[in-house]
Each structure stands twice: as C-alpha cells, then as structure tokens.
C-alpha cells in the first residue's frame, strides 16, 4: 500500500503528523493488519510527558497486548475519545484514526524518523521473512 507522505513513521509502526510545534500520532495500516481486531487502547492522560522511544500506552487485539512507543518527546494535549468506545475504527482506517495529540519539545527529532517510502521498504522487508 502507499503510505501517506504527509507524515513520518517509526520502526514500531506508529505514524506522526507534525504541524509546527504540535503533532498527531496513530498506528499504521501494517500495524492494524498484524494485530487483527483491535479491542482496547490504553493511552496516557492529557498532560502526560512522553519521551521519544519510550512506551506511552498499549493497543490490544483479541489475542495480544502491544506497546505503543512515543515517536517524539513532548506533552500530551488531547486523547481521541473514540478509542474507548470504538477501537475497531483503527482497523477500518488506521491512517485516519489518531490516538493522541502532543506538543513537540524538539521538532528536529522527526528528521531521523522514516519517510513514507522508507517505511514502505521497511515493512516489505519485515513481511518478507
């Protein structure tokens, strides 16, 4: 699939869409497909401090619990209320379903993340083994 070019990606299968000093975060279509039916998402509260690379929540499928890893450092400003009632929306449209919004302490952190093209290559290799 073609991954949207308006955002960056992590090797942990999150996407981050930056708009100046704030960003929106979700998981990729590859992630939702690998997980299967998503039944539960645990996110931090508004005001929580996130550190790039550290876990900030969990996403659960019927069978398994998966950690969510922060793509960047900053503070949570908003959490998507839909996640509590309709987690399956993430399966239906992973790139259109955001999980959290945050301020970016250091927007330059995103420079080291994967572009859409690099992420596509990365998942092609991962799925290939």
């Amino acid at each position: 699939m073609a991954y949207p070019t308006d955002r960056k990606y992590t090797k942990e299968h999150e996407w981050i869409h930056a708009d100046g000093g704030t960003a929106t975060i979700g998981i990729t279509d590859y992630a939702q497909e690998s997980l299967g039916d998503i039944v539960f998402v645990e996110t931090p509260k508004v005001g929580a401090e996130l550190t790039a690379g550290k876990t900030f929540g969990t996403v659960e499928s019927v069978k398994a619990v998966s950690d969510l890893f922060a793509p960047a450092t900053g503070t949570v400003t908003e959490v998507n209320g839909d996640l509590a009632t309709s987690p399956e929306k993430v399966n239906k449209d992973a790139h259109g379903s955001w999980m959290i919004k945050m301020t970016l302490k250091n927007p330059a952190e995103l420079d080291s993340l994967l572009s859409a093209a690099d992420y596509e290559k990365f998942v092609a290799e991962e799925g290939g083994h």
Partner: protein
Amino acid sequence: MSSLEAPTVRKTALNAVHRQMGAKMVDFNGWDMPVEYPAAIGCGIINEHMAVRTAVGLFDVSHMGDIQVKGPQALEAVQHLCMNDASRLQLWQAQYSAMLYPQGTFVDDVIVHRAPYGYLIVINAGTREKDFSWIRDNTRQFDCEVKNVSDDFTQIAVQGPKAAALVQKIAKADLSQIKPYWFTMTHLQWDDAGTKRGIGDVMLARTGYTGEDGFEIYLANDADGVAVWNLLLELGKEYCVLPCGLGARNTLRLEAKLPLYGHEISDTINVWEAGLDRFCKMEKPEFVGREALEKAKAAGVKKTLVGLEMVERGIARDGYKVLDDSGREIGYVTSGSPSPFLKKNIALAYVPLEHSALGSKVKVEIRGQGAGAVVVPTPFYKRKKT
C-alpha cells in the same frame, strides 16, 4: 557428534491451504497452525467466532492426537486410565473424560469413543507423546494393544447451528440419527464437475470444542483432505461458512467454559479444584488417582475455578494475578480474553473458596494496577436448545 537441530515444525495435510488463504500462522506446540484468516476475506478472530455462533465455521484440528486401545481387556485398561465410566458407553458413543496422575491431577483431558474395534482416545496436540507413553506404560498389566494412530488422520471440525446441514450435503449417513457425543463410520460423496467422487471409511463424530452443535470429520491421511476442506468451503457459502483458526477456537471454548490443558487443568490441579466432578465416577472401585482424590475431598478443597467478568476497563489475560479488595494476591487467571459474542471481557481463574461465591468482587492486576471484576456464573455462553 551430530549437532543439535532445532525440531522441525510439523504441518497438517491442510497446511498449504491455510497459507494460500493468507492465514496468520503460529507455532502451536510444534505445529504450524492458522491463528486467524484475513480480514480481506471476511475473517479475523471476531468474525470467525461469530460465524460459529450464528452459522458455521471450519477448523483444521489434525494436530490433535488419537490412540487406539484394542484387545480382550481394552475396557479394563480404559477404566483404569480414565476417570469417567467407559462401561456406560454403548457402541458408537463417546464421553468426555480425563487421565489422572496418582496424585489426582491431570495428565490430559480426552474424549473416549467406543468403536467396534475397541476404544479411540482423542487427546490434545501438545500432549501426544506424553499421553501415548502414559497409556502404554499404565496398561501393561492388561491384555490389550495400544496404538498411536495420531499421524493417520486429517481431522476437520465443522461447528455451528448450520454445521449438520453442511456436513449432510456430503455425508451418506443420516446425521439426524447421530446424537451429541455419538459417532459413526460412513462415506463422503459429492459431485465434482459431473464426476462422482467419494471417500470411504470416514468417522463422523458429533463432538467439538466450541459449545455449538457440530461434527468432527476424521479422514485417513491418504484421502483427499484438501478436497474435503475446499468442498465444505464451497458448499458452505449458502450458510456463510468461514474458515476458523486457533484464535477463534480459544475464544469459543472459553465462552463455553471448556478447559484447556496447561490452563484450567494441569499436573498441579486436581479434579475437584477444576470443577470436573461430574466426569469423575468415584463409584468405580479403581482408577489412577482415585485414592488421592478421596483424600483430597476429605481434606477439603482449598481453591476453585470461577468465571470472572471485568467491570472496570481492562482485559484479564492468562497468568494475570487476581487480588482481593485490599490488593492482596489471592489467585490467578487461567484463561482470559475479550468475549466476541458477549462483548465483555471474561476470564476463568483459580481463587480460594471464600472468594468464589457468585457476585464476589475481586480485582485483576493489569500492568501493575488492579481492575475490578466480579464472579459470574459459568458457562458464560450456553447454546439455546432447539
């Protein structure tokens, strides 16, 4: 000296079909098995689960094991090994049972079938070798023959309210004559683009592990199991049949409170704790584990298996701790998962007797925090009698 090789993963006769359908595969006790089929073909654990509850689903269960016990003292051997009363079985009848260690704990749970040649004991995939050795070693004193025929069968489970209708399309026998927990030997026959095809010597048992009506089809491995699988998928289209993997198999049996070896039953859990009293015939004068069970009953059971329903947000999973209201650890979850049919998060857990009454409030420790749950009646799901 030869180097240690990683054990080769085992495949059923249907393995290529699962892979070709795009199933997510997992190593299950050394077997390469489908967990779930793709969302793109309408599958996924939740859809597969609901197909079995409302229509019909197909499972490849060829990884399960099969042991035959034959000979003049086959019944005596089975009575010695298994806790249920096999002497009550009529020809073509089956019963749920278990083999116990001398301590009254579980070797495995089984289904015992009384066939014209003797007894067929169907066992779990993960305990094939252990069970065969156990049966062979504990029946030497009887005039009987123990044969491991696990590799001889392809086994397909067809489960759900429409299962009988689907299987009847290809079965010669009149399935309405086969009651639950009975079986038969019959032919399968179908029309393949004008050519009549068939498979003889097929065992059809009205058994399953889903809490629904259904049949398990046992085919010889050299029969065309792939053709039967594909045929059932094709003919089942009118019933909205789905192929189902181990993921749905687990959520279905959990809702129906069917035990899974290594979880609700194991070599450290006895029959009374597991709540399987009704399958344990203490009026039988002798069977392995009977003495220990008598002592355990006299001493009083300390823990018991209960059903839990989460009342606070969170999913209880296998191995999670169960806590009392003050946060003290009192037990553990044996199996836990979202329940696709009930749309709740459910679990089975061992707790002390004083916390086992219906309505008792407990907590399940999820990632370091206690989430509220309540003891509920089981099974969580029971199919309506038609």
